[in-house]
Every structure is written in C-alpha cells, then in structure tokens.
C-alpha cells in the first residue's frame, strides 16, 4: 500500500518558481501512480485565477500545466474557500473542491505525508 502525499501549494504563480515546483512534485507523483492530493492555499489559489496574462510579466502560463494534473492521475484537487474569497476569486481555471477550515483539517489529517511549498 503506497503512502499518500498531500502537496500544499502556497505561492502565487508570479512569485518565483515555488508554484511550478509544488506542481512538479504532484505531477511526478502522479506519473509514479502514487496517491497524490494537491491543495491550493493562501496566495497559491491565485494559480487558479481565470484570465491570467503571465506574458505581461515575462512569465510562462502555468494554467496549461495545471490542466495536465488529471492526465497524470492527480484528481484529488482542493482549494481553500477562505483563500479564494479573500482574493475575490469565484471562478477557477481548474475544477477543485473548495474546503472550509474544518474540511482543510480533515484533508490534511487524511494524508500520510504533507509537503508545503
């Protein structure tokens, strides 16, 4: 039985490589058929914003990479509802389950291992 891993992504997509590097952990785990979850928390939810223009700040669009998650078998995708609301995000570029604080607590508890980036 494989150990499950929850990746918590807390960085905005323009804030250095952190968002990309958290995503890469999830994608690599999916490629190895491991039970991986990905939670967008705090500024990490900004990765889910619709209508980003990353080229305006000479960045690559991370949204396309996010769409690859289900193809890599990473389908347990979550976002903190409070983080979304605080940043005025209602629509998301990726289908995620929104969790309140109780839901977050239960989620983190459910996974064997947690990595936060």
């Amino acid at each position: 039985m494989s150990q499950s891993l929850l990746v918590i992504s807390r960085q905005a997509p323009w804030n250095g490589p952190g968002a990309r590097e958290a995503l890469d952990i999830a994608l690599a785990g999916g490629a190895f058929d491991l039970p991986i979850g990905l939670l967008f928390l705090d500024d990490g939810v900004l990765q889910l914003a619709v209508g980003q223009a990353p080229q305006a700040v000479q960045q690559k669009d991370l949204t396309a990479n996010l769409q690859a998650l289900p193809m890599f078998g990473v389908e347990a995708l979550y976002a903190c509802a409070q983080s979304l609301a605080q940043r005025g995000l209602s629509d998301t570029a990726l289908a995620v389950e929104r969790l309140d604080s109780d839901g977050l607590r239960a989620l983190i508890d459910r996974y064997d291992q947690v990595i936060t980036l």
Partner: protein
Amino acid sequence: MKFAIALFSPPSAPSSRRALRFAEAALQGGHQIVRLFFYADGVHSASGTIVSPQDETDVARQWREFVAGHGLDAVVCIAAALRRGVLDEQEARRYEREAANLPAPWVLSGLGQLHEAAQEADRLICFGGD
C-alpha cells in the same frame, strides 16, 4: 525509524541548520535516513562555492561533511539546481558553464527520488517549506 528528509531552504536560513541538526540527532538516536532530498532553494545548501566568514557557521560545508561522513544517500533535484546555478561537472560541461559547484557526495537526480524515498521511509520530514 526510517526518515526521508527534504530541505527547501538555502544554508543562510535557520531551517537548513535545523534540518542538519535533526539529521544528526536522528542518526545519533539509532534511526536511519533513507535519503536527503534538496529541492527548491534547498539546492543552495549543497553548493560547494559558498564562503562563510570565519566566525560564522558554514552550514553548506557541514552538510557536505555530514553526508560524506555517514555515507548518506544525498540527492539534489536537477531541475531546481540547474535554474539556480548549482551544477556538477557533467552539467557544467553539458551547458558550457564556467564553473561546477556541486561536489561529491551530492548527486543530481529527479523528483522520482523524492517520491521513492517518501515511500520507503516511515516519516517524510520537510524543512523550510513556506
């Protein structure tokens, strides 16, 4: 207990020193470290070209000596390292860069090594995540 240890911060960060002290204590306590995996800014903690003032702790050097002294499996993520200019001889040649700064016993490899270690270990302990 079998530990996998992941580090995400540079040697100037307190968490790099804490990770090293944890790793030392784990071995002293009779535990096993299945692998060290340095990722994100943690790749700087493996750099061989950091020069610390004489009266300050050289954490990168201490990491190197700790890894070599115990013959540990110590992996630096290649993608994270390349983008931060942490290169071994082979990568410096491949990308025609002037210097290599990742000495033995560190090994450059991919994220699969992190997942493999996490699966093998009883506990994955992370230092320096945000």
